[in-house]
């Protein structure tokens, strides 16, 4: 319990710091929402009037305090660009990004674990060398490029999906999944490669140094039994941590993929909102992402503790 409480406190502090830094960043960068909203029709009087009506002429700490207070009440503010409440704007986008992230994660785990294990089992065989080479290629190719390639091959040539026709999950869940599988593959490929490499080297280092491995072999265990029965559990710990970082990274890197596949997710919205200096939206999304990162790392810690009881001793 103490452990959970400590983690929760840490999470809260992280989010406060992140949101404060984001707020601060907007103070520093040039350009502000009023000139963006008024465009080339801006006159000094109109700019002032708009600043006042948006509350932008209050001191920095007052504005930040008021935002925090609003956040705890559940009022995330109103978008400057869209005049819509931020909560309802994000309400539609979070499931989309969530679905995409979830699909990518399933793909990553489902492919990288078996491949990594296979690779470790047949270490230094021909298969292992080929896999290693393929790995290198996949790590080097940027998801942006893979995305366009997949869209072209599966969308235009094979016509397995229609590029540009994203279907919302509320409308038709099946069609949405069918559309999202391709961007999920584009996101997953380089990360599968990295996870495989990670798992493989983790397994190798465990095999090399651990005394219990020698004991197991001397007991008559097959290589297979040693791997799956003993080594895997220890080797998984750094991999789980790595996967947590990957999950955080996917959400952050989703912007590029969302653009290529025309998916109206959170990443796209974040990018545009920074461009138009739409603070309320940016703040809300940044806090959500911070929360996500903290959550994912927390889950990774919990899972690691279950795998390796030694980590439970605090």
């Amino acid at each position, binding site marked *: 319990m103490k452990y959970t409480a400590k983690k929760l406190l840490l999470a809260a502090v992280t989010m406060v710091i992140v949101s404060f830094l984001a707020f601060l960043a907007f103070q520093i960068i040039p*350009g502000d929402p009023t*000139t963006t909203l008024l465009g080339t029709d801006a006159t000094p009087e109109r700019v002032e009037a708009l600043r006042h009506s948006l509350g932008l002429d209050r001191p920095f700490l007052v504005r930040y305090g008021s935002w925090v207070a609003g956040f705890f009440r559940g009022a995330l503010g109103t978008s400057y660009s869209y005049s819509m409440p931020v909560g309802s704007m994000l309400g539609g986008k979070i499931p989309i990004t969530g679905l995409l992230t979830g699909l990518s994660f399933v793909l990553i785990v489902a492919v990288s674990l078996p491949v990594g294990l296979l690779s470790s089992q047949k270490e230094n065989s021909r298969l292992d060398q080929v896999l290693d080479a393929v790995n290198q290629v996949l790590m080097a190719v940027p998801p942006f490029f893979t995305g366009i390639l997949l869209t072209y091959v599966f969308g235009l040539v094979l016509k397995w999906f229609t590029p540009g026709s994203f279907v919302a999950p509320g409308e038709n869940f099946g069609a949405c999944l069918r559309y999202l599988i391709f961007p999920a593959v584009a996101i997953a490929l380089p990360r599968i490669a990295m996870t495989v490499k990670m798992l493989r080297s983790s397994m190798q280092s465990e095999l090399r140094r651990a005394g219990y491995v020698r004991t197991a072999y001397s007991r008559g265990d097959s290589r297979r039994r040693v791997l799956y029965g003993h080594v895997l559990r220890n080797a998984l710990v750094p991999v789980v941590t790595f996967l947590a970082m990957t999950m955080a990274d996917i959400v952050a890197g989703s912007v590029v993929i969302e653009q290529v596949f*025309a998916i109206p997710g959170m990443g796209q919205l974040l990018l545009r909102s920074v461009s138009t200096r739409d603070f309320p939206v940016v703040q809300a999304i940044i806090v959500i992402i911070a929360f996500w990162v903290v959550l994912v790392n927390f889950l990774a810690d919990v899972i690691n503790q279950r795998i390796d009881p030694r980590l439970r001793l605090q």
Partner: protein
Amino acid sequence: MKKRRLALFLALVMLGTALCGCGGGSANESAQGSNGKNGTAVRGGEITVGIAQDLEDSLDPHMMVAAGTKEVLFNVFEGLVKPNSDGELIPAVAESYQTSDDETTYTFTLRKGVKFHNGQPVTADDVIYSISRCAGLSGGDPLVPALSAVKSITSPDSKTIVITLKEPNNEFLAYLTVAIVPKDYTEQSTRPVGTGPFRFVSRSPQESIVLERFADYWGNAAYVDKVTYKIYENADALVLALNSGSIDLCAHLTPDQTSQLSTDTFQVLEGTMNLVQAVYLNNAQPPFDNEKVRQALSYALNVQQIMDLMADGHGARVGSSMYPAFTKYFDDSLTNYYAYDPLKAKQLLVEAGYPNGFSMTIKVPSNYQPHMDTAEVVVEQLRAVGVNAAIQPVDWSTWLSDVYTGRNFQATVVGVDASNMTARSMLDRFVSTSGKNFINYNNSEYDALYEKAIAASDDAEQTALYKQMERKLTETAANLYIQDLSDLVAMKKNLDGLHFYPIYVLDLSTIHYVE
């Protein structure tokens, strides 16, 4: 042996992957489609229009500023008058109008039977509300600066509106394209309601905007039933969506993009963007405060080469702050005033006191690829006469606050359009006291000409004065004028009825499917 074969295999894979990335658009030009097809117009159907940016703007017609927002909402709102594709003003919410002899009083007769999208009929009160709001008559700032010329607006009876101006203005009619909106409706910024041929249905941020044909429209009803605007921020995603059939129509494409479209499905039509792209110089900053320097740089530019390199030769050269669609006011003799002459450029620089050239920074809004491309060519052409220019890309928000409002720049490449359809708005910007004079142009003769022009008693005199103002801008090389960018529109072959306007709008009401 095994290792060598593996290495060879890897090398081939890498080469293949690298080559896939190269290879730009194909060399064949898309054919320019014809607009007048044989085939009967079909009523009904739905179309999907691709746009490259969402409307991150208020949807309130009196508050919207972005050209992209106006382009879409042109179909939703109308004023007392509205522009047609020839650039003339035709009566819309008003049925007819009269101007007093001294050009200070305009009398409008309201059209019968005009309804708002929410079903309510348009009354004189709504008109008074709309125009007062824009003119700032009920206190507060005028939302549409041009309407600050209005002194009062009254309605002697339910069918008549009388607008009185503070001073005579024979171009005032063009400002009455401002939207007429219902008086007591407060949700314009999120659910706009107007009188146009299409009504707003819904929007999803960064995803789509949906419009539907308004059944009770007073005029010629639109052909298609529903229009969905879909947003594609990424240029490649836009092309993929076009080729897959997700989009039926898309404007403002580059030649690179149109060359990738299948000519079986799409026709490519060419219009113009209706703006003046130039290297705008800050006339208050040395060395650009020196007229000889500005003239030298004008001679240094090879505009034909710029258009060839950044747009495959598409585009129309301009020599002053006016674009060709304004046929009445466009002075073609100014177009080639500064014929490409790098020797003369160098000579003028020597005369100005810069025999070894100088360095400068050009700030360019990075979200507009055409301006970025133009700037790169300009840099090379300036280098040839000894001027070292560095490009500084800034994002649009920064451009607006830094360059446009803050006037903190030496040079910038951008396109300036006519905010309403008047020649005046292309020229009044450069009056020395104008709040929109971001280039700090200061020429007393120009100011004097402007005063004479707005006081001009007849149209011919005013037109002549405008042309003189254009000439003044060119002769003093206020900016390095380049072109009116070409506007490539891709439309499915089974669609027809696209009319290009002399302003940045896309009229959907005439677009229809053909059998």
